[in-house]
């Protein structure tokens, strides 16, 4: 599927996902070793996006399982469709009478019903949920188990079983095996630490906030209209904001939102008034915004002093050769 680490980085880049070699290495290993990947990192750095893009780049169909508290087997794996079964019994009532005809004793009748019960517990009446769909799919799939940290510990144990050999036993039907082993991505926001057993089976990828160079490239790829000078200022400001002790540190998705907002406002450069007015795009808590307002002078003055932020736009062109 992928030939090398650079190939992965290139393929993801073509899909508009700019990343460093660390992500490329792990994705490449995951495809070669057929192991699940556990992606961790702060919110908004592109964990879910990575899975989506890998699916596109490797032409796999994406099947997504969103985890939440109380998610159980019935909602993740499969469920019997009770109402359909009931409906069928109603409709087939007469057929039953036929089948029963001639049975003299109760035991005989029960025997006959027993012979037919496989009709009602067959794949026809199973509602496949994401996990089963990934296993049964006729084409290669990518299974994204999103925010696995939100699920309950029991579900995690159950997940382990499925991830280890990709087969599911439905007692009434038998064992269903996967035709193509799905590529699995699990994402976690560190709401709770995952068990060691799960971690042991996965490759681990930690995506951190990008450095300013990478962030500039991402910005250019994702928000094409933005001017280089503005992009550099913006990224430099974000990098500094992240150093403040904030309740919710703004991440890449906030950078992109902000760039789009500035674009819509037709801004050519960052000045204090503009930043003050649009700060609520990147900071989501009143306390954070207040704090940033207080530091605003410092954040902007710093920029005037150091010419460094002007440099990054030159590098992306060079680094572009990578793709």
């Amino acid at each position: 599927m992928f030939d090398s680490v650079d190939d992965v980085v290139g393929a993801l880049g073509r899909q508009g996902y700019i990343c460093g070699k660390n992500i490329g290495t792990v994705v490449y290993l995951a495809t070669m070793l057929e192991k699940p990947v556990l992606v961790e990192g702060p919110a908004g750095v592109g964990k879910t996006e990575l899975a989506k893009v890998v699916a596109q780049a490797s032409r796999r169909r994406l099947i997504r399982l969103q985890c939440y508290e109380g998610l159980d087997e019935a909602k993740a794996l499969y469920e019997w469709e009770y109402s359909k079964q009931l409906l069928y019994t109603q409709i087939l009532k007469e057929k039953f009478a036929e089948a029963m005809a001639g049975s003299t004793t109760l035991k005989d009748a029960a025997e006959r019903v027993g012979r037919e019960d496989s009709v009602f517990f067959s794949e026809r009446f199973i509602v496949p949920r994401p996990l089963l769909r990934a296993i049964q799919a006729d084409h290669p799939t990518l299974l994204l188990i999103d925010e696995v940290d939100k699920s309950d510990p029991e579900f995690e144990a159950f997940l382990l079983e499925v991830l280890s050999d990709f087969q599911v036993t439905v007692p009434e039907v038998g064992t269903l095996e996967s035709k193509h082993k799905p590529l699995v991505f699990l994402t976690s926001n560190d709401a709770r630490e995952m068990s060691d057993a799960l971690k042991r089976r996965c490759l681990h990828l930690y995506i951190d906030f990008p450095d300013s160079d990478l962030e500039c490239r991402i910005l250019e790829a994702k928000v094409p209209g933005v001017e280089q000078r503005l992009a550099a200022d913006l990224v430099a400001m974000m990098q500094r904001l992240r150093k403040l002790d904030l309740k919710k540190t703004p991440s890449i998705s906030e950078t992109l939102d902000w760039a789009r907002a500035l674009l819509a406002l037709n801004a050519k450069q960052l000045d204090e008034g503009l930043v003050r007015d649009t700060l609520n795009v990147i900071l989501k808590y009143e306390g954070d915004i207040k704090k940033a307002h207080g530091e605003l002078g410092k954040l902007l003055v710093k920029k005037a002093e150091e010419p460094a932020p002007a440099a990054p736009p030159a590098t992306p062109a060079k680094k572009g050769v990578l793709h």
Partner: protein
Amino acid sequence: MQQKIVEFTNLLRKSGIRVSMAESIDAFVSIDELSLDDREVFRDALRATMVKRSEDIPTFDQLFDLYWSAFYDNLRGAFDSAVGSMGGEFDLEKLLQAIQQGLQNLEGQSDLDLSELAKALLTQDLSQLEQLIRQAAQGAGTERIENMLQIGFFTRRTLEQMDAEGAGRQLRDLARQLRESGMPDAQVDALLDLIDKFLEALRQAVRNYTERELQQRNFDYMEKFRRESLLEKSFYNLTEEEIRKMREVVARLAQRIKNVLSIRRRRLKRGKLDLHTMLRRNAGHGGVPFELIFKERRKERPKLVILCDVSSSVANVSRFMLQFMYSLQECFTKIRSFVFVAELGEVTPLFKERDISLAIDRALEGGDTINVYTRSNFGHAFHYFWQNFLAAVDNKTTVLILGDARNNYNDPRGWCLRDIHNKAKDVVWLNPESPSAWGFGDSVMDKYLPYIDVAEECRNLKQLSRIVDRLVL
């Protein structure tokens, strides 16, 4: 290579990163899949397979640099500078060719037998050399090194182990024989010079290796110190630095308690059949109860009233206790916190306005409500609480008092605590002094003890977390 990865795995384990057997096998397999020219890729592969906790990543990076990168580069640097110092006209290639020639001439005539080390030196086979140094160091027991003073000793032992002197002798022997077989004098001199320089470079490299070994060991030690001893270190003598680190440790412990809590909560869930919800949920199946719904049995979350002595003697204990309690806020329906020295004041609003660490700093300064620069008077504080806040205590409230009960010979007014005790669900007292000191000197702990349900010594983080654990579960 395999040997090195196993060693590296051991190093990770020693530093407190858990790497299972399966994980190190993954590391082997993944390295087979990759080309190893790119060190970054190599590092990412090892990290993805062996390190599964984001907190461990910095440790891993440091160890990786220490273990993988520096040494080979260092070896290379030492030999390059050895060759470089030979002077302008010296041509290594030519000399090696000449030696090659000479060796062929000697073939069969002499019983020259070069050791592995001598061969590696002559051909500058650095990876072979690295291998040899590692083996020798193992033989010399370098991994037992403990302090700076031993570097010289272990360097010498390693060199002896690999018989560096013998190799030098053999090489000089070789040079002599080459001269006899008709090699030009100038070249032989250059060779002799080079041999000396290589031996010096080797000594350097071994010394460097020994130093690194010491660093690695120190690293283990530091890590262990950070992780374990903070838990048991008394709150009384913490440095600023340790207070900062301790804050992280408290946050982690609180997180762990929350995790465990979610599991235990769920086990409580199986209650009675919930007929109402079940009928409604199963209406789609014609009222046939396919799905059973049970009522949830909720463990009642306690209310918490915290009384903290913030006089300088116990301020640190108060700090971590407050942090702990507020990190676990969701385990309680309500927390009200009061601080006292002699006067008592409520600081609950502080925690609503600011984030925890700031609020705690302010609370320890008295939070604008009390004067902290007085002498402790528990009796007065309890009396004030009894007069003004007794309504805050009901039969679902746990009252948590933190203080050393050193009352400066004031009236203890135990009856106030008795009344609080009568109204509350529990009264828990955490005392940073050990029980043997209770009631001696100006301690009035013995006067209060009859009205306390749980009295515990709480002097370090381990004890604190054990108490918190009992409190919330």
